[in-house]
């Protein structure tokens, strides 16, 4: 704890007799976010009866943990000389096109966690599973077995897995295309994903829709559509219904730096905030919406700044720190479930592949990719687990081997599925009805 406090002090300039919290807030480049979040939390406390003594947003917690835990090759002197070397701040610099110092080798995850060893290994299982399912999809794509595109979440898997892991059975998610990790964490089997991508009859949509565009009400997975932002109002409705049904559930709606520009996002989050519904909006700030960088998407520095506009707390978390993602979301989930209302979490991360496999990423500077490769969330978590004595390299390799074995079976199952019968196209438009062959009018029958 002492070293963390020191780090904060080094990061700040002289602040005289001001309170520690105030000084801390001013050191963060996103100071106004911190302040806004605290105000919102405190307001919520006053109204909702929920009180959490420590209202320091996880932005601070996550970053300081990273500093404290990461055996950074740089000296303390260089860190204090450049407070902007803290993860979130570096990130902002990249968005603005400034070359950031490459100090990421050796970074581990947050040390403060309530997760047990068993849970941390389960978290590793889902993280690695996500990575390997996607790699398998790329293989299938190159073999022309995937009918549509493949949308990777390479480099940002920790966000989807870590945030979703904070939910309980009965809670709901609405993922985006790059939230395969959340879908798998919710208990969807990889075979369903493979069958969907290969347009097979045994896929959950029976060949009617692509990739993770399906849902599973039993497992709390609402099927998303391509129109970004639309799932925020839908999840608001899910939670309105749950309130009427006296179910104490919470929901995560995922959105990105691009999707937050839509009107539906605004309408949905505003309504959820007005109704004080337990909706956690996880904004995955992965720097690109197709080819459009964030600074062409929004004029705010941090996506979490937007929380203030809805009167809800906003958090910023290092999206490549799976433990921080879990802890921040867990806190938001507890806050929401106890009646605090909606929360916006911005996870700062990076999309290391193009929009889909066909995208050559010509709009991405090479150095940027190299930088973020060093911040790979899987490498980072493996380093964390091994360096902290939570697991040995051999144990992690065993988990990986188990996943690979599992995926062999899952792919084989999906490949053995037939394509759908053509006339199945006419089913399921309405309940228990078949659409007639309208384009074959009787008069043309001979």
């Amino acid at each position, binding site marked *: 704890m002492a070293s963390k406090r020191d780090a904060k002090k080094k990061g700040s300039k002289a602040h005289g007799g001001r309170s520690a919290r105030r000084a801390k807030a001013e050191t963060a480049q996103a100071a106004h976010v911190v302040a806004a979040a605290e105000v919102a939390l405190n307001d919520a406390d006053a109204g909702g009866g929920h009180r959490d003594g420590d209202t320091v947003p996880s932005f601070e917690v996550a970053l300081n943990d990273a500093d404290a835990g990461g055996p950074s090759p740089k000296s303390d002197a260089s860190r204090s000389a450049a407070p902007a070397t803290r993860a979130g701040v570096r990130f902002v610099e990249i968005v603005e096109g400034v070359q950031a110092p490459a100090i990421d080798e050796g970074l581990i995850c947050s040390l403060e966690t309530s997760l047990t060893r068993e849970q941390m290994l389960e978290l590793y299982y889902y993280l690695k599973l996500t990575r390997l399912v996607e790699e398998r999809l790329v293989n299938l794509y190159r073999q022309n077995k995937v009918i549509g595109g493949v949308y990777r979440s390479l480099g940002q898997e920790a966000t989807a897995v870590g945030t979703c892991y904070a939910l309980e059975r009965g809670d709901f998610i609405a993922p985006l295309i790059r939230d395969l990790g959340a879908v798998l964490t919710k208990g969807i089997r990889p075979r369903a994903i493979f069958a969907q991508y290969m347009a097979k009859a045994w896929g959950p949509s029976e060949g009617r829709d692509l990739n993770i565009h399906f849902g599973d009400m039993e497992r709390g997975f609402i*099927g998303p559509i391509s129109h970004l932002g639309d799932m925020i109002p839908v999840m608001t409705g899910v939670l*309105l219904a749950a309130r009427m*049904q006296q179910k104490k559930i919470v929901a995560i709606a995922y959105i990105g730096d691009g999707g937050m520009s839509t009107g539906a996002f605004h309408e949905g989050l505003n309504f959820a905030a007005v109704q004080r519904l337990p909706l956690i909006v996880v904004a995955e700030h992965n720097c690109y919406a197709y080819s459009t960088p964030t600074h062409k998407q929004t004029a705010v520095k941090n996506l979490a700044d937007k929380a203030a506009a809805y009167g809800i707390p906003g958090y910023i978390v290092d999206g490549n720190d799976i433990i921080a993602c879990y802890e921040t979301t867990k806190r938001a989930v507890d806050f929401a479930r106890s009646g605090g209302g909606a929360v916006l979490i911005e996870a700062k991360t990076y999309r290391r592949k193009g929009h889909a496999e066909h995208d050559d990423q010509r709009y991405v500077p090479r150095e940027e990719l190299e930088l973020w490769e060093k911040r790979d969330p899987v490498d980072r978590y493996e380093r964390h687990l091994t360096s902290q004595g939570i697991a040995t390299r051999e144990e992690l390799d065993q988990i990986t081997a188990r996943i690979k074995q599992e995926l062999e079976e899952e792919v084989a199952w999906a490949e053995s599925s037939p394509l759908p019968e053509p006339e199945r196209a006419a089913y399921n438009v309405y*309940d228990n009805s078949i659409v007639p062959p309208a384009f074959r009018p009787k008069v043309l029958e001979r």
Partner: protein
Amino acid sequence: MATALKKEHKAERPARGGVVTFVEAIRQGIWEEMERDERVFVIGEDVGVYGGAFKVTDGLIDYFGPERVIDTPISEAAIVGAACGAALMGMRPVAEFQFIDFISCGFDMLTNFAAKCRYRWGAGIPAVFRGPCGAGVHAGPFHSQNVESFFMNTPGLKMVEPSNPYDAKGLIKAAIRDPDPVLFFEHKKLYRLPRLRQEIPEEDYIVEIGRARVAREGHDLSIITFGAQVLTALDAAEELEREGLDIEVIDLRTLLPLDKETILASVRKTNRALILHEAPRTGGIGGEIAGLIAEEAFEWLDAPVVRLGAIDTPVPYSPPLEEYHLPQVKDVVDAARRLAAY
């Protein structure tokens, strides 16, 4: 199902049945369904204490409480989206558009989410999206539109538009009980029209979705129409009767899916078809009906199929302009005469 609803019934519930206006019939229908089924709730702008812009939901909040009569921000996408989400959870939302013109703000949620959920992953959306449509009340371009053709090309939706209190109550109940998303259009000119006051049954009844009605039997010509234009057609038929023309009027009631059997049976009987709707003619659902008749009843026709609609302009505000824009009884009479003489 356990719900959080406190039933302190402060308001008087309306009578069942009796002699009612169009708006009273719809309110009775929603009220009875909310009583019958705890999953039914109302959501929209100003639907609570104010009772809705046209007072369709008047009194509901006092009787059923604010948990089941939910006022929203001015956010049609949120209204539709929230209704969809609640429907997925097993609820039966009745969402109101203050004016149906604003359905455009929820268009994406309706056509891409509500309409496609069952097809994509088997998750039905049993929700009703209702609101006042129609012109003739000098409300200008944004409070007068008829939007059915916007949605005609979207499989997965159903569309309903009643023309009288009996059908309005029966159809709103059927829509609420329907397992799929139903757009329910209420012509605002009909809400309190004294001429439409009608005795409706005290007992529970529904009007099946997908069934048209023969509003007037005749042998010389079929006028195929719906909503407020049913009255225009009936007025024209009366005038034409004096000239010895025996007009049949088909009230479609359901616009999607169309009741092809009733339409075709009528045309095969009268051998002449005049399609009448209030939306602009180009791209209106009249084209769909004309296509159906041409494909499946061509050999029975003694004259070309004629479509009558509004002229292809936005709905203008000033009374003489609006009158010029809309199809009038005189236009129907003229068209029918020409068709009969063909």
